[in-house]
């Protein structure tokens, strides 16, 4: 059995300890903001925060989340007004939008540790994420905008 918190709510999990956090969130908690893209930590669509650090939920087994605090895109900001979320909307970053939860969660972790990331810092932090629509230049611009407005 695993005890964890998801966006501040205490949760108990009983089941296959190998089940990735992704499917616990999506199928059991029905929190579908965290996306399935590859299942092998290759695309970043499933990125959530575990004790504040970005992890790929698709390869994080439930046994590894016991006692941990998980934050998903739904819990990033109570009002959905995180500076990154604001910048994303203002700059019209999304096209299809499917990868953007993961992109935003990764960017939020970046800004927490590096309030003024350089272009190279952003590329290093974000290149584990794939956007097939090709929104990379706008993602970069939105992170820079959020950084200057204080994330």
């Amino acid at each position, binding site marked *: 059995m695993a005890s964890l918190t998801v966006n501040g709510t205490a949760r108990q999990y009983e089941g*296959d300890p190998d*089940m*990735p956090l992704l*499917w616990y969130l*999506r*199928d*059991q908690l*029905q*929190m*579908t*903001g*965290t*996306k*399935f*893209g*590859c*299942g*092998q930590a*290759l*695309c970043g*669509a499933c990125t959530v925060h575990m004790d504040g650090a970005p992890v790929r939920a698709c390869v994080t087994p439930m046994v590894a989340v016991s006692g941990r605090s998980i934050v*998903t*895109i*739904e819990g990033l900001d109570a009002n*959905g007004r995180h500076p*990154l*979320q604001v910048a*994303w*909307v203002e700059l*019209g970053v*999304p*096209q*299809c*939008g*499917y*990868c*953007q*939860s993961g992109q*935003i969660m990764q960017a939020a972790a970046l800004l927490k540790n590096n309030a003024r990331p350089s*272009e190279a810092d*952003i*590329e*290093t932090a*974000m*290149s*584990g*994420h*794939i*956007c*097939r*629509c*090709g*929104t*990379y*230049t*706008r*993602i*970069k611009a939105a992170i820079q905008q959020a950084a200057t407005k204080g994330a």
Partner: protein
Amino acid sequence: MSAILERTSTEPRIGRLSRRHFLAATAGGGFALALGWPSASDAADPPKYGALGMANGVVENPLVFIAIGDDGLVSITCHRAEMGQGVRTGVPLIVADELEADWSRVRVVQAPGDEPRYGNQDTDGSRTTRHFFMPMRRCGAAARQMLEAAAAARWGVPVAEVTAKNHQLVHGPSGRTLGYGEVARAAAALPVPATETLRLKKPADFRYIGKGNVPLVDGPDIVRGRAVYGMDVVMPDMLFAVVARSPVFGGTLRGFDAAAALKVPGVLKVVEIKGTAIPSAFEPLPGVAVIASNTWAAMNGRKALKLDWEGGPNAGYDSVAYRATMEAAAAKPGKLIRTQGDVGAAMGSAAKTLKADYYMPHLTQAPMEPPAATARFKDGRMELWGPFQSPQAVRGGVAKRLGLEMDKVTVNVTLLGGGFGRKSKGDFASEAALLARESEGKPVKVVWTRDDDLHHSYYHTVSVEHLEAGIDAQGKPVAWLHRSVGPTLMALFMPDPKTESPIELGMGLTNLPFAVPNLRIENPEAAAHVRVGWYRAVSNLPHAFAIQSFVCEMAQAAGKDPKDYLLELLGPPRRIDPRELNDTWNHGEDPTLYPVDIGRLRRVTATAADAAGWGKTLGPGRGLGIAAHYSFTTYVAAVVEVAVGAKGELTIPRVDIAVDCGAIVNPERLRSQMEGAVMMGIGNTLGGEISFKNGRAQQNNFDTFEVLRMNAAPKRIEVHMIPGDYDAPLGGAGEPGVPPVAPALCNAIFAATGKRIRSLPIKGQLSA
């Protein structure tokens, strides 16, 4: 809440439709349905073009698309599928503008698949804005006039004294006003005005069209993780399924053992899905489905299946060997597509000749959301939810496969997590429907994993383009020979075709608009060994890559500047009737309304070149490359700047892309489509490849199927949009940005390094 039209998303009904606006459903299998073949049903009928040529044509009834509540909230129905191209913003804003609605009081409703009710819904071929700009304007204008008439009746004044403005009806002489909600009920009861009585707004009065001031409808939901894609459909009592499919296209299941799979905790049932003999169109592949209480259990159950596959006719398919087969075919004459002058004689007397083969491998769409669909079968009715580019095709496919009447099948359209052509094929929807039938009324969600997606796609074709040219002593082009070899997507719909359809050929090959006196285009044979489908920009990709690379090679041979040489080949500004080029398809559009306009192609070329500073001095290892291409009735040119390091490290400081798609409805989304097209074009070129061995796709995930990531992406993309006339025909926007990108990139690499890339992907070629 009362409404102009009350409706629910799951039980569409005909309502008060004005029948005269209806066009009869045209006949047509998957081919016409999917690709927009002009659909004259017999030779005696005049051909129908544009939206009218598509299955179920156009519906212009405002009662179908617009509802206004007593509170004034305007609901606009979007009947096209949203996959990132922005239609859920772009289509409703057209209606809202003509309706004089305040965008802050508009909500967007997604239509289910029901083409007799909504008109064509096949969201493909860069057609949405091109086909529905005018119909949606007329819908909005008709509703506005109905509101004005209702207000005039309420006040007892002549309707000419009433004007709708920004969600209010204003009586000019008295200054009295009424809100839209106050007269919505009365307006709904009025007759729909006839088309010829509609008063469309003047472009100068547009509020949203062309302004780029309307934020993305789904933006706030997307950034909060609230947007619902097909993969995200959640229902009570839902079951989850994954399917093990034949690893080779055309293979069959000899037998299977599900005992171990059924012991996996959470696994509930194992169901065989029968395949369909080739040509299998959009039917599911043969497979074995594992149904479980969650996705993870279903995946584990699938791993435990024991499967015995018969490989079938494609079990020997090897893409390396097949390349040699295609190159051999390209070395010999093939089916004649177009000829003018005498290429043989002109080559013989040319001062210089050159030839080159260009190879483009199979690619795949790989949308970030893999295919997924949910179905529920209850009380004889099948209902589906999913990311469907062509929901009516899903409806027809499911009805046929399960032996149901069409009116027993409801298809709801979620957001698409990318489409790029993959999600116009409803194989995954039919899988869900077949499994739902076995699940006692419970909804079943079929989830494709990434390896499922890469192994069982409808792939972009594989191709060899053989080009030869002759130039005279002054460097002028005098002869042009192009042999295009690649399996056709027609193999989805007919047994073993070997030559390309007019649609594929019409994507930049047959309709090549170059001013060369002697020209010959041939199409030698090639057979399909995988499901060849369509991928964003389709056959334009290999055609533009080869032709625009070869232009640069010719410039080099002639000792001329590549941009100048491209303009020389295009020749003087003129409008060419596509029929003169032997192009019978012309993107399904009327050749008199949509000629090939060389002036426009020259203009985007010059615009991109000027913006990029063409001719500027760059340091060592740096270079500019240019390419221009006409597709989906839109003109695009790109200039790519590259920097190549000593060890072949490639960076792309900047791309300039110029687009002329005629009038621009939502410049903000046109810009994003061009940015995305640049990214996708570069990704295709740098690393994109699906290879086959023993009939099996060799790439399993994004480690081996390389797509563009931020570290390799251009640092800067400048989009230059040529404004157009709102009274002239519109062009497409979703696809035409992609084709010129690959050749512009390869031409830039040549300028920087002297290395000519003729085989994609580039991968390690620069370090070799």
